């Protein structure tokens, strides 16, 4: 997870992430901190494209507080999950969403 700010002149050293957890993105196993959201975990792993609009344009994070719906992903088969306000969990399977997303039942 290369994009971390572990040392910060005001916030100090980030120490509250003793164990890392693992989740899957498009089948690939990635690491995250337990206090990450899906969005922060993806960004930390260098992933900026969260999905594609119905016309095929890449989509990423925009507001990070659940207001814009730019970050919709599929989690364990359920589409329209806002990655920015959903905590990452051990073992979840995250996929890029295309358009409105296709739920698998």
């Amino acid at each position: 997870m290369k994009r971390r700010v572990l040392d910060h002149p005001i916030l100090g050293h980030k120490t509250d992430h003793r164990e890392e957890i693992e989740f899957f993105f498009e089948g690939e196993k990635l690491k995250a901190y337990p206090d990450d959201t899906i969005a922060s975990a993806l960004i930390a792993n260098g992933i900026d494209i969260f999905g594609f609009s119905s016309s095929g344009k890449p989509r990423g994070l925009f507001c990070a507080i659940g207001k814009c719906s730019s970050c919709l992903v599929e989690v364990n088969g359920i589409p329209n999950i806002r990655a920015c306000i959903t905590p990452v969990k051990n073992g979840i399977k995250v996929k890029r969403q295309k358009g409105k997303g296709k739920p698998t039942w």
Partner: protein
Amino acid sequence: MVKHQALVIGAGPAGLCGAIAMAENGVDVLVVDEGLEPGGQLPKQTHKFFGHEGFFASLRGFEIGKILIERARKNGVKLLLKTTVAGIYEDAIVLYNRELEKTQELKVDYILIATGASEKFISFKKNYLPGIYGAGAVQTLMNQYRTLPGKNFIIIGAGNIGLILGYQLLQAGANVKAIIEASSKVGGYAVHANKIKRMGVPIILNHTIVEAIGEEKVNGAIIAKVDASFKPIPGTEREFVVDTICLAVGLQPNVELAAQIGARIEYVPKLGGYVPYRDENMKTSLENVYIAGDLASIEEATTAMIEGYIAGYNIAQKITGKDFSEQITKMKRELVEFRKGPFSQKVREGLKHFNISFSEGGYRTKIQNNEEPVGKLRVKIECPQNIPCNPCETSCPTGAITVGENINGIPHVDYDKCIGCGICVTKCPGLAIFLIQEFEKSSIVGIPYEFELPDENEKVILLDKNGNEIGYGKVEKIVKNNRFHTHIVFLNIPKGFENDVRHFKKIVKNYEEIICRCESITRKEIEDAIEEGFTDFEELRRYLRISMGPCGGRVCRLQTLSIISEKTGIPISELDSGRYRPPSIPLSFKAILNGEDDKNE
């Protein structure tokens, strides 16, 4: 169906203060918020807030958030997170709890809506690309989740949010290539702009972004100059190589819920766009619905807190039947004080639309004339605007600083009283106070500093107010402030530069520095070898082949010795300088043989 006396929607500064005002007076209040954490935008703010101590001035946003949350909990406020108010219907309110995946019905007598604001978006080519973020999103990522979405940033908008974001990015170790502003002047506070200007970040006025470069994600931005009507002028385009574009182009109130409940909404651009009508007690057009904070008018945290209290006390008064007019009047007086300055002009004008008037003026506008006691250790305040802020005044133990009658006044110093203690330097949220003292041969400047500290005695590059390099200085002393994180770095600088030096940067060692030209050995290789334990010149020579080349060590011997001395602390005079082997210059065999011939002749 769950029942409460009052519901607060939104756990930001306005909502929390409203809830505290109610709970303190015995009201049963529930606060609902969508976020994973309470505090609204406070937890992502690492800078010190303006205002006065009564509203936590000089504390950082995330610290203020913690205090408010604790105060709310202590007073019995119930907090429901990860929960969205999905709909407000005539007979009940429906909450949706994201975590439990269920809805819940709620009935309350009073509602305080404090849903805040959302960031505005602007249109430019390819503005959909990943790598384009709202300013707040980048703050959330880096300060709450400790994740930086890129390395090289450009910020669009030089209001306070853009300026603060720039500073926070620098603290997180990112490069900020520029801040772009469409209007002809910086919209945010000068003290915020100065903090990043002195670190060398340009603020480019009269420009806007016209295109994001990249196919799958941002790898550049094109900006262009704008004309008087903010239209890009063709032919003035400029390209920046960046991987992240941050939009800090303003906020718009989140009116959806207020509108849904039936509160009258009006379009008042000076307040931020569509806003609910409210009276001076923060009551909407509905008897039992109140609002506060950015939803009511885009402003800042202090006024949001005050409005929260006003709404909260009013609701508490109605529910309990007790009289809280004293508290309400006190808070209203605070608002009047805060809103007198030039930065409140828009809000003052906007509120006229609702027949609410706030007076302007009554603050000190004069900038102090300099009759400074040269040679004495004293403060230098560079806070030229009328902003609602006074920690400089209230923190000074000798009463040397005053901002005058109103909190928007410009601070003046009584130099007879200033003892140079530096407390104000560490408290000032604008990092606008410096310490200076002239000596016979050099001068001292004390700089408020919130980055990784240099070493004492370190030689540094001095920077002026615009981040230009203006020579070298030395770190004289560091006064650390581990509690509040604003340290003071005292620099020894050339005389005459006391009013220029405002920042510094480390001299980055160039590891491509070649020490031994013959064998092409770099300073870094030597330093590493010394660290491995080769601290003797002869040892280094055998290990690295340093000074074994044709020059015979002329170029590198002394340099190598001085590096050993630097790293080991042993003076050069006490180091073994190694053997001097012949020949002292390269000799060809022919020359040697010819010499033999001479002898034989």
